[in-house]
């Protein structure tokens, strides 16, 4: 087959993501691999990826408050931001999927046994495509914190789950967005699994008075940064 195949190279996220073995997060000790990850050279399968989603998203999917006969209970919020790569380029036309607990901290899922009420007007899932500037926008309610069984008196800080594809297999990211000033951060082993405190802060949205809709909804802003193509490789290619 052909020689001289020149591919974009995605920089490695050294030191950003949590170690898979994080003993304070107990279930990692049942499921995270013991053996070191094997470094994989990036080939065609890794620098390409599914460019899907537009065909399965309607405008209504980005508003989690208008799916039912009544409105969900809770603090209505507008949540917006941009998806960028680490070179600062917007990631346009990419699918974002979110899911979350309701305002009482209960997921509408059979496995959730937290004795807080299900909200019949809230199912907790949403999706949208980023626009040409990489921007997304959801309307939802602020999720509540909830207890879990990781350690005695363990509580998850309020969070919204985010899933992103980017444009390449290397850019795939599933993460959680948190809210500013949450008093539960210090005791949460999932939030604190990210070793660098500055990186942890990048999972926290900002309150925005500017985005707040008067008499209707509080505004929050959160940008998401995916792996970019390695700058060194770009310079090399430009020189070539």
């Amino acid at each position, binding site marked *: 087959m052909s020689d001289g195949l020149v591919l974009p190279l995605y920089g490695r996220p050294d030191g950003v*993501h949590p170690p898979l073995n994080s003993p304070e997060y107990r279930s990692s000790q049942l499921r995270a691999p*013991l053996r070191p990850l094997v470094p994989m050279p990036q080939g065609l*399968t890794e620098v390409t990826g599914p460019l899907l989603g537009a065909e399965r998203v309607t405008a209504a999917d980005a508003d989690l408050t208008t799916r039912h006969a009544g409105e969900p209970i809770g603090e209505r919020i507008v949540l917006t931001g941009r998806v960028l790569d680490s070179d600062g380029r917007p990631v346009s036309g990419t699918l974002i999927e979110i899911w979350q607990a309701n305002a009482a901290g209960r997921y509408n899922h059979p496995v959730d046994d937290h004795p807080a009420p299900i909200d019949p007007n809230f199912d907790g899932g949403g999706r949208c495509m980023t626009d040409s500037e990489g921007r997304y926008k959801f309307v939802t309610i602020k999720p509540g914190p909830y207890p879990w069984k990781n350690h005695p008196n363990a509580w998850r800080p309020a969070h919204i789950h985010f899933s992103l594809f980017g444009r390449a297999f290397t850019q795939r990211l599933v993460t959680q967005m948190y809210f500013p000033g949450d008093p539960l951060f210090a005791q949460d082993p999932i939030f604190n699994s990210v070793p660098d405190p500055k990186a942890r802060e990048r999972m926290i949205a900002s309150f925005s008075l500017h985005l707040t809709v008067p008499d209707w909804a509080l505004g929050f802003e959160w940008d998401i940064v995916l792996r970019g193509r390695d700058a060194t490789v770009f310079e090399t290619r430009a020189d070539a």
Partner: protein
Amino acid sequence: MGDLTPSQTVGPFLALGLPWADGPFVVPEGTPGAITISGRVCDVAGDPVPDALVETWQADEHSRFDHPDDPRGAASSAVPGFRGFARCPTDAAGEYRIVTIRPGPLPSPGGATEAPHLDVSVFARGLLDRLVTRIYFPDETEANGADPVLAAIAEPARRETLIATEAQDGGPGEFRFDIRLRGEGETVFFDV
């Protein structure tokens, strides 16, 4: 890479946001030449993981991707409905199943040829980042032997964890690929 957003676990409630009704179908069921790949995800004790999500990404039958970053040019498959991607949550028995076609081999930047394969992401509660692995085919012995990614695995015995098997009692084109997250027989996972 200092400003990246960190990964967090998908958690136990991914079913609220991620499954698609057509998720498991890289090609529609009943497509001529379609194959199935199914398997069980299990933990350190060998117990099934009933709340995982398995995703796959692959080239088409002619080794092409419908993607602008493929320097050979974006090309769509001749197989109607092919989209390269599948997503399947595991069931109570830890089982997933996808329907696809066999991908072609791929040129690689180093000049070697990659054997036909699917890239796999595994997400689950307990995994703070996705796990990346690959599925290769059992009847591609020669191509697998020349594959640069398999060759990068230092212990030859561990390469076997990436080779699918022909399903027992299955028809032609039915493959099994179990994923052992941790412990004895642990699947090889990659840092990509």
